[in-house]
Structures are given as C-alpha cells and as structure tokens.
C-alpha cells in the first residue's frame, strides 16, 4: 500500500470516528481491547476502557483501522501477562466466515497462484494441483458468500434458542466475511473450555453416533450383523437434534432423488427405484420405529446404505454447522468490536437485531462513507455491489468511484491512489 493510499484511508477512518458514537459492549470495564493497523488486525493488546465515553474519546484520538474486544471478563483487563488479568468468565462466541463455507461463486471471484511452480487458476483451493505446494489464494467475498454465512448464522440461532435455551444473544456483521454471535447471558460465563467444546461438538456433529440416537438392530433379532431391518427414532416423537435430522430424513425420502442417492447411498439404481416405489411404506414404517431394508437378502448393504445416507447426505451436507472451531472454544480471544470499522473493507461491523437478520444486507446497511467521487487506479476486481449500485469488473484501469467504493477497493489492496498505476 502506498503512502498516499494509506493517508487517504486513515483520514476517512478518522473522520468517521470524529462524529460517530460507538455503543459500548456490556461490562466494557471488564474487557480487554486490542487495536490494529491497516496491514495487521492486531498490533496492540491489553488496552482497557472504563466507560463508553473513554472508549469514544480514544477512537476519536487514535482512529484505529481495527478495534477488537475480549469475549472474556477480567478484573484487570489491561494487566499482563494473561494470568494477572484475573479471569472472571467469558461469553460464548460463534463465528461464521464465508471463508469456511464452500460456495459456488468462489470459482468466479477467487483465484490462486502457486509460488513454487507458478501455476495459477480460478477458484479457491489449498494445494497446487500441479506440484502439491500450498498456494496463495486471492479471496473475495460477494453477497452470495455472505448470504451463505447468514444462512448458517440463522440455523445456529435457532439451535441456540430452541435447543440450548440461551438468551442474551447479540448478532453482528463482522465487517468483512461473516457474522458473529455473542451469547452474553450470565449462565454461560463460567462454562469451562471442555463445556464449550461439548457445545461445539453438538453443533458440528463431532462424535455423533447413530446408535446413541436410537438407530440399531431390534433386540429380538439376534445376530446384529444379519438383521436387515433396523430400528429408528420415531420422527413425530423425536426431540432436539434427533428431530432435526429425522425431519431431514423424512423429507429426503419424500423427495427421493435417485441420482443423488447413487452418489451418497452406495446402492444400485435398481434398488433405488424399488425404494422409490415403496417410499410411502417406508415412511409409514418409520412412524413405527422401523427402518425398512433396501434389500432384505443383503442386510449389510442395507445397514451401510442408511448409515451413509444419514451421515453423509443429511448431516454433512445440510445439518452440520460450519462454525469456526477455534473462536468458539477460545476463552481469551479478542474479536471485532461491534459497531466499529473493519479496516480492510471500510464496512461497519453492524449490530443486527435478531428479527432483522433475514433481510439484512451488509453491502448497503454497513456502508458509511460518502459518495464524493475519488479517482483510483484499480489493479483488478470482480464485479461488486455497494449501496445498490454495481461496480466493475475492473482490470488495470483508472476509475472514478464514490468514496465508499474507492475505500472498499483501496483497503482490500485491489486499487491505489496516485493517478496512474506507476506508483504501485
């Protein structure tokens, strides 16, 4: 990033904080804060503020491109090392990052380059298909990506509310690629790390066992390996997580897609068609707690089929949450302070009300900068939309963009100020 670009970005951030009033997080006096610079999200930690006023004064003075706060509560949040802070408990935090969700649009807007052999291509992958080395990926997050992260967030919220019975949920856009959910009710503060892992395992189906959920061989049948008939939880009587995947199983059988089944289910087309004809009967029997065999003379195939159908097709593909593992178990993390700027997009990490999340659009509602025209040189950028207006795609060209769009590309390192591209 050249100095002119940097100066521009810093000025804009400063002007934002000059008039903005950032709402404090609950118990602000017990939180640790950290700030970052344009290139690095955290350069300084162990800061603390006694009040909302003090925080806002600090933001006006320093105008940091990033500010994060701890999910933990401390007696002395600015003390160091960590042990001296006096840990008092921590919120539960879940983070959904478009990063972790494989969306089809990644093929359009992401690209990779291998630094060992020079191969490159579109899409997002980890290892070079030519030489196997780890590649460098240029990421982009479009509204489709963020919608995917939002869908996961909504799924999570419903589980947190209906199953875990948590209250005190607060949701915010991360300012870049996803959403954060903070569970701040008192009862979770004391949960040890182990408990947080249990919750996470529940959300991600880690350690899940079909047998524990009531799938198995009827006790009266004798040798288990030779039973083609299996027991299953009764869909209409199931509760909690069992109910969730039984519901999926029922609708899957109703829709019965022979093609899909061949991929997941490891059965022949003939068997699948046979089952398709009998699906009413299968559903009926399920209500009696019985899972019919797909092939009565081959019990093992049958057992394997149901197992793989439920575990792969239903749980892996649709029920399991793609929540960021590290965030949700770490009790000493600092994360984006809601309501503040994300320095690599210029978008606000907006707090979103629960009932407004569905229609929330970060690319218009989290934009804060003005529409003043700014001339920039753009290296490259996919098409994007901000405040309802479409921009790009751009490639090695000059353009005049409204300030918010200019900031967006400049902060992402896709463009620079200073007339033509020579300054790069």
């Amino acid at each position, binding site marked *: 990033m050249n100095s002119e670009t940097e100066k521009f970005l810093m000025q804009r951030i400063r002007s934002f904080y000059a008039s903005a009033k950032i709402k404090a997080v609950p118990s602000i006096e017990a939180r640790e804060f950290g700030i970052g610079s344009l290139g690095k999200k955290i350069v300084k930690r162990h800061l603390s503020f006694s009040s909302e006023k003090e925080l806002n004064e600090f933001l006006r003075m320093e105008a940091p491109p990033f500010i994060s706060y701890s999910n933990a509560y401390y007696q002395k949040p600015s003390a160091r090392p960590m042990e001296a802070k006096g840990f008092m408990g921590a919120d539960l935090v879940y983070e959904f990052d478009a990063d972790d969700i494989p969306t089809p649009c990644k093929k359009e807007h992401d690209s990779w380059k291998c630094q060992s052999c020079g191969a490159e291509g579109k899409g997002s992958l980890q290892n070079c298909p030519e030489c196997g080395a780890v590649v460098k990926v240029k990421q982009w997050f479009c509204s489709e990506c963020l919608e995917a992260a939002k869908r996961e967030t909504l799924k999570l919220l419903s589980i947190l509310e209906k199953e875990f019975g948590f209250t005190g949920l607060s949701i915010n856009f991360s300012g870049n690629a996803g959403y954060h959910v903070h569970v701040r009710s008192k009862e979770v503060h004391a949960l040890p790390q182990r408990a947080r892992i249990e919750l996470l395992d529940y959300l991600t189906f880690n350690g899940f066992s079909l047998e524990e959920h009531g799938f198995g061989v009827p006790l009266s049948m004798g040798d288990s390996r030779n039973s083609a008939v299996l027991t299953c939880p009764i869909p209409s009587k199931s509760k*909690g997580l069992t109910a969730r995947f039984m519901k999926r199983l029922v609708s899957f059988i109703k829709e019965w897609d022979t093609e899909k089944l061949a991929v997941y289910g490891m059965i022949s087309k003939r068997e699948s068609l046979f089952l398709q004809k009998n699906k009413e009967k299968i559903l009926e029997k399920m209500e009696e707690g019985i899972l019919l065999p797909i092939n009565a003379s081959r019990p093992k195939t049958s057992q394997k089929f149901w197992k793989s159908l439920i575990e792969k097709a239903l749980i892996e593909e649709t029920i399991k949450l793609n929540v960021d593992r590290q965030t949700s178990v770490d009790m000493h993390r600092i994360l984006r302070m809601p309501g503040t700027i994300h320095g690599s997009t210029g978008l606000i990490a907006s707090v979103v009300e629960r009932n407004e999340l569905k229609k929330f659009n970060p690319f218009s509602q989290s934009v804060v900068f003005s529409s003043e025209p700014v001339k920039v040189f753009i290296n490259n950028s996919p098409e994007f939309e901000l405040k309802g207006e479409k921009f790009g795609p751009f490639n090695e060209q000059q353009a005049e963009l409204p300030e918010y769009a200019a900031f967006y590309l400049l902060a992402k390192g896709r463009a620079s100020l200073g007339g033509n591209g020579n300054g790069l």
Partner: protein
Amino acid sequence: MIPLEQLRFAQKYPFTKTAQKAIKTLNVPLNRISEDVRERARIRVERALLRKNYAPRFFGEDPELLENEILSFPLAKIIVSLLDELSAMQAFAKSVANSTLVFLRSAENTVEECISLASELGLKFDLDEEGNFLVPLTVFLSIPFNNDSLKLVNRVVENGMVFLSTDLFALFLSEKAYSIVLKSLPVKDSGFPSWIKEAVRVLSDSFKKKKRSFFKGMTHSVKPEFFPPCISELFEGISSGKNLPHIARFYLTTFLNAVGMPQEEIVKLFSHTPNYSERITRYQVKKICTLKGKGYSPPTCTKLKASGLCKENCNVKSPIQFYRNKFFGSKSNEKKSDFNEQ
C-alpha cells in the same frame, strides 16, 4: 447414634455431606483408627490402582461394619494423596465413580436412589411424564465427563434441558462423583502417623511397577484445543501443508506421540506437506515413536525457547504439562482432610 439408613447411604456414597457428617459424629481421631479400618482403606486404594471394582454390599444390620467402611474412605484419600501421583488420584476417583454407578443401578428403586443422591449433591433437575430426567444444560456441562454416551451431541437437548434416561442420569451422577472426589484431592499432609506412610510406601512400590506412561491406554481422542501456543502453531502449520524445519517436525511428533495420537494419524498429518513421501515419513515417525518402547521424550519449554519455537509464556515447564492441566482442569490446591484434626 446415626440412623441405619444414613449409615447405608454414607457407605455407598462416601463423597456426600451425609458421609462427612457421619464421620464427624463418629469422631475417631486418626491415631485411634482401628486395624479393620486401616485394612479396608488399604484395599480400597489397592483395588482402585488395579482398576478393579470396589463396591462391597452390606446386608446385615451391623452398624459397626458400615461405620468402618465409612471411616476407611477419608483414610484412603490420605493414602492416595501421599502417593503423590495425579494418575493415582484419578484412578481412585474413577473407582468411586464406578461403585456409585453400581450402587445406583442395583438399588431397589433406581429412580428414587438417583433422586436422593442428586438432591443431596444439590443438582438441579426435573422429571417428565415419560420418566426422563431433565438437567439444565449448564448444570450438565459443569461436570467433565469421559463417557461417550453422555456426549451432548448424542443426547436430546430442548429448551435448555438435557434429557437423560434413568440409566444415563445414574451415569451422570457417577461422573459427578468422579469430579467431586478428584477435586477433594490431594489431602493436605498435616503430619500423618508413620503407619500411614508405611502403607503408602508398599502401595507406591507396586503401583510404580504397574504404572505405564501417563496417557497410554487412555481412551480419549487427542484434543488440539488444549495444545499450548507453540504446539498449536506447529500443528496448524503441518495440517495446512507448511514446510516446517526438521527440528519443529521432530518436536511436534514427540509431543503428539506422548499425548497418545496413533502413529498412523501422525503420518497422515504430514501428508499435506510438500515433498511428502509416505514411506520415509512412516519410517521416521515410527523411529521417533518407538525408541525404547515409548519414543523420544517430548520437548521442555526450555528446549523450545532455545529453538525459537516458544510463543508465549505459559508458566509451565513443558507443553505436555500445559496439555495435561487443560485436559484435567488444573489441579486445585490441597484440601483439608475430613478427619477431625486433634
């Protein structure tokens, strides 16, 4: 005189307040403990260390037998504490948990037995019409458990309540017993009589002979969430295919081996790295993990600091210690013995 019912309860569940009250009432100072109680305490510990069941049942009406049994528990705790081994304390807690489960499940009316124990322990719970015990989620999670049947992902959770069958609720109570007992150890040494120390010496010799390395044989899966910063960085690096220097790979391998990751999994981990050769990796991993039967010792913090791999000052001597503390919840300070100190 303590009512027989209470004596019975105290004998079965020696970690409860009822048992502590009984001990107070019996008021036998440590130096006047009978030979019978000593012997019972020794057997208790021995069975625990051998991982054998200890759940004696008393059918008669002889309160003295019950009393001796009750008194042997705090004495056994002292003996275990003097062994000064975390694994001994864990084995002891485990044996109490096992006997709790046996007593609960074999009770005449398991539901009622569970209700009285849970109430005595001050646990919040509810019962539904179908006979399930409903435990508030945060209460359920406050107890560290090792049993996969109790894993949250395998239970029904609704409206903040975890649904448990009577059988599982009994299991849950036994895990609670485990954590209560483990938390009460070690008992502070307030000048114990020499006969205790002698008993300890004998047990300790046979225990040491039997003891295998710390994590071997444990049926847990490795928990990367508990790795210290230095190991986490290496672990994540390797998983994402970074090319780490030789010494870093070496330390990581010794660490993973020591916390019980199977060799095959370690080999797989390296498969993301550039220039991976399965044959060579397998050979090297095997060499590192099997030296003298248990593999190279994992590094100390001093060594990691010297190679510039230390990330933060964690206040431990080695990454293994860090992991162990996280895994078992750090060991709290010593507790007072249950005997009246006179």
